[in-house]
């Protein structure tokens, strides 16, 4: 469940199906490149992870056709795998992609997603907590990072991402609503 009490959106089947043919090695390389750009521009992220950067985490968006194996210390490095062929990791965090991205974007609270059983944690609980806390502090906006990296195509991408977000309901960008008291 989300912070305002509504049900989590599921990734539309059409999008999940469209993703199926994506070549896994290419996806892994692209995600690794992207993750490295993000950590370069947010040096506090790895610093906050500290010793927990050595622990690998399998991030498993249950409504997508693949899972991601993350090694934060190796650059970081991300590889994509079919769910049942993913290599072993120190920890696994699983849930709808909306929960995972929404948590990353500060829309949802990780503990609340855990209480409501939208998120599942297995293995090294510490590694997952450290990663979640470090990401929460980094105030990432994956859409903005992508747009920033795509140069002249950025404006087009922004419209595209906004469209996908509207249609799918997935929380693709950060949303820190400010209270009226500050």
């Amino acid at each position, binding site marked *: 469940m989300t912070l305002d009490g509504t049900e989590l959106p599921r990734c539309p089947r059409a999008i999940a199906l469209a993703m199926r043919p994506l070549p896994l090695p290419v996806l892994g390389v692209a995600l690794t490149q992207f993750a490295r750009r993000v950590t370069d521009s947010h040096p506090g992220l790895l610093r*906050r992870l500290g010793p927990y950067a050595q622990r690998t985490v399998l991030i498993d968006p249950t409504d997508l056709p693949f899972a991601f194996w993350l090694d934060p210390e190796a650059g970081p490095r991300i590889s994509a795998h079919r769910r049942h062929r993913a290599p072993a990791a120190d920890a696994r965090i699983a849930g709808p992609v909306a929960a995972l991205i929404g948590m990353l974007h500060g829309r949802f*609270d990780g503990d609340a997603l855990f209480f409501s059983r939208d998120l599942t944690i297995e293995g090294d*609980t510490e590694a997952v907590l450290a990663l979640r806390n470090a990401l929460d502090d980094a105030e990432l906006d994956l859409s903005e990072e992508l747009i920033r990296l795509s140069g002249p195509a950025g404006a087009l991408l922004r419209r595209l991402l906004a469209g996908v977000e509207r249609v799918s309901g997935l929380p693709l960008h950060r949303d820190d609503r400010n209270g009226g*008291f*500050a």
Partner: protein
Amino acid sequence: MMELVCPAGTPASLRAAVDAGAHAVYCGFNDETNARNFPGLNFSPEELAEGIAYAHDRGAKVLVALNTFPRAGGEVLWHRALANAESAGADAVILADLGLLDYAATHHPNLRRHLSVQAAAANPDAINFYAATFGVRRVVLPRVLTVDEIRAINREIDVETEVFVFGGLCVMAEGRCSLSSYATGRSPNMNGVCSPASHVVYSEETDGLRARLGDFTIHRTPKGQPAPYPTLCKGCFTSGEQTGHVFEDPVSLDATQLIPALAKAGVTALKIEGRQRSRAYVAEVVRSFRAAVEAQAAGLPLPQGALARLAEGQAGTTGAYAKTWR
């Protein structure tokens, strides 16, 4: 208006709390000097100084929790943390240990001292002792008292009181519990952790989600039911013929509706638990409570709380504030 004291586990949460209307934010250093020594949480001395500057620019205070009990032979870590808190400009430190209170009163006389809930000062004699001996200016009351008892305490003391109104709920007298170290070797008093993640293992089994702490199964949650934290005192156990939550149900405290009664009982500040929660949670809860204390101060009816879904087990309790809890 009652002062709203809000949690921050990260610099981002501190900013979120201040932006959402916190009058004060409490936080700690990223080591065993505070009772939320969790992976990936808390502040370096530099981050604390930046956070304090951000808060002060916006009229909010920052209170630094140094509320574990210094390790014999390792006291220097806590002493350094006191010095770092003072030089970063902290508005107060929140302390629990007799030795550290004594040290702070002697070496940092101008740094305002609050008594942590971890000191479990549950009656006027205890509070007057800390006030008279260490110049403590505010006491965070343990979560074992009724509203009537809080009112009675305030009549017999000269220092401010702060009470928890939302979030995790300790069933045991805080700072006086070794359940966690009995099962895991790591405790709130010594290590700043309770039922630490390092010793928690979840497994999805046929009868639901099983949570183990050290060698002990803490609970099994059937599919589709809200999962609690793997906190020992909220586990499901068997005693004789009875199976259930022997100590406490997996609920969290929500005393929103008691704010007027607490104000009448002479309480100065309301505290929200949850330094381990996300900045999204902090912003949402702080915003809601700021609206509540504004309404209370203006004599208006309180907004109906809608925070239950954020609570552990997704259920709230008024805890010990109502006498029937005992």
